[in-house]
């Protein structure tokens, strides 16, 4: 038993390394002084970071990504929080079906969703526009917000709301002073998660971008398809850096494993 336990532990550590290895390789590779990407890196320099700053398309794409991810998260949080509150608080007929409907964009392959939205948006003149892009991203973010806020509301003590009502607070005051502060961590997690989902999305975005509006993962994706240089490593490291910061905040608020439905 002891040896099998030890073997399993070693196996576990190796598997975790296997999961992390692509990320662990990218960061050192970005500091190479060679003109081609490799791991282990050849020499050491910051040249691929300075070259990155000279490439306006990456900087624009980063700004676009951040801007759209922020807006998508904002709208997804508003729609999602209102929806989750309604589901949790009121006896709505067909509640289970409504919840499934609201989380169903997750069960449809992103490729199919991308195809559907592109074809649908074209006659509506939304294809290749910022609005179309934003709508698509809100759709993919909504299920996560719904899920996280509903989880946040599952332990909610409605007596607090009733107490406030008895003390004479108006429904709006109750919402601002009681409900919102209590579910704030869930809302923030939902928003952060939505931001990351939108920020990192490639598949749906591929159908939604236009030549003059690209996001960072799309820029990296197309750069990888036609050029192969360490610039991809440095820009990828920037993405990792941004993601790690947000993941740390998310972990403090909610637990990243929990978000994916794993641990209790």
């Amino acid at each position, binding site marked *: 038993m002891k040896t099998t336990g030890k073997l399993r532990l070693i196996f576990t550590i190796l598997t975790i390394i296997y999961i992390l290895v692509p990320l662990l390789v990218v960061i050192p590779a970005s500091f190479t002084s060679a003109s081609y990407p490799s791991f282990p890196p050849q020499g050491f320099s910051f040249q691929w970071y300075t070259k990155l700053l000279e490439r306006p398309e990456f900087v624009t794409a980063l700004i676009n990504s951040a801007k759209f991810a922020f807006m998508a998260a904002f709208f997804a949080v508003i729609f999602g929080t*209102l929806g989750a*509150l309604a589901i949790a608080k009121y006896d709505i007929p067909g509640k289970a079906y409504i919840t499934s*409907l609201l989380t169903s964009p997750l069960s449809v392959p992103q490729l199919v969703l991308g195809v559907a939205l592109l074809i649908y948006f074209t006659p509506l003149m939304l294809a290749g526009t910022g609005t179309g892009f934003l709508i698509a991203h809100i*759709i993919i973010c909504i299920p996560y917000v719904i899920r996280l806020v509903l989880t946040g509301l599952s332990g909610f003590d409605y007596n607090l709301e009733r107490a406030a009502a008895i003390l004479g607070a108006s429904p709006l005051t109750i919402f601002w002073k009681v409900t919102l502060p209590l579910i704030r961590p869930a809302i923030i997690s939902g928003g952060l998660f939505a931001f990351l989902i939108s920020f990192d999305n490639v598949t749906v975005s591929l159908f939604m971008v236009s030549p003059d509006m690209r996001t960072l993962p799309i820029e990296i994706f197309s750069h990888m398809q036609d050029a192969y240089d360490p610039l991809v490593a440095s820009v990828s490291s920037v993405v990792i850096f941004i993601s790690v910061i947000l993941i740390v905040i998310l972990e403090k608020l909610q637990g990243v494993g929990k978000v994916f439905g794993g641990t209790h």
Partner: protein
Amino acid sequence: MESVRHYAHQEVTQDPPVTPKQETDPGQRKKKKAYVPGLLLLLPILLFIFGFFVVPMLYILYLSFIYTDSPNATNAVFSLKNYILFFTDSYYLSSLWITVKVSLYTVLVSLLLGYPVALTMAKSSPRIRGYIALLIAAPLLVSIVVRNFGWYLLLLPNGTINSILTSLGIIDSPLKLLFSEIGVVIGLSNAYLPFMILAIATSLYNIDPSLERASAILGASPLRSFFSVTLPLSLPGIISGCVLVFSMSMSAYVTPALMGGANVPMMPVVAYDQINNLLRWTFGSALSYVLLATTMIMVTVFTRGFEKSKFREVFR
């Protein structure tokens, strides 16, 4: 973030939709108010999902039955021709076959690598469990393009793995890891393994530890306990993990495009090409629905097959 989205597949197979706990306290039951204000709160999100998700999905289902010879042709007819074209052309059929094959390999690799990790999580303290969950789940929040680029560096003909294997004298000439099915399976299993682990771990947490103790007391060896108690009881987790990883692999676009290229024309890559490069929208819509239907049929057959097996009692 190709990988994260599919979390909801679990809903179909494992979790019921997250709904708040049923209130048992009679005083609390009164908080359930009339549903009219609730519907008002739901209205924006319902309209949004309906208008920008349900309708587009139905629209391309309709389009998949429209056949035209060229993007701008006006001779559109309502027919099954797109689907007939798909199932009579060896290129599309082989693409479907490759997609299914690569997805099944991905499931197998994820299951073999994932099960022991899930077992470790189930046997660890909540603290360690939390750390493992963080380490395996956090990469899911980094763009799949970035993770694939990492594999690029490792799998290139003159990349890390080939140089190590050559310098150790295991191989003479570089292995074709990139732009091959192996590369795609590595990329996909790496991306989706966390979902497999978390799905299995969840079902392992629910096993009553006294069952294993009981089997030990009754004289079963640890191996015997594992195969007759733990493994069968974790089957629901295994199934939901497999279903999850399978459906995600079937519809992955970025990894096959980057790590398989033209050598591994999986369905999503072919569909993207039809839509974005050839502008054959109605045929692309049909491809999308063939992909969806194949995934659903295979998942149903797989789940039913397991339910009918001798482990059926586990599902009660």
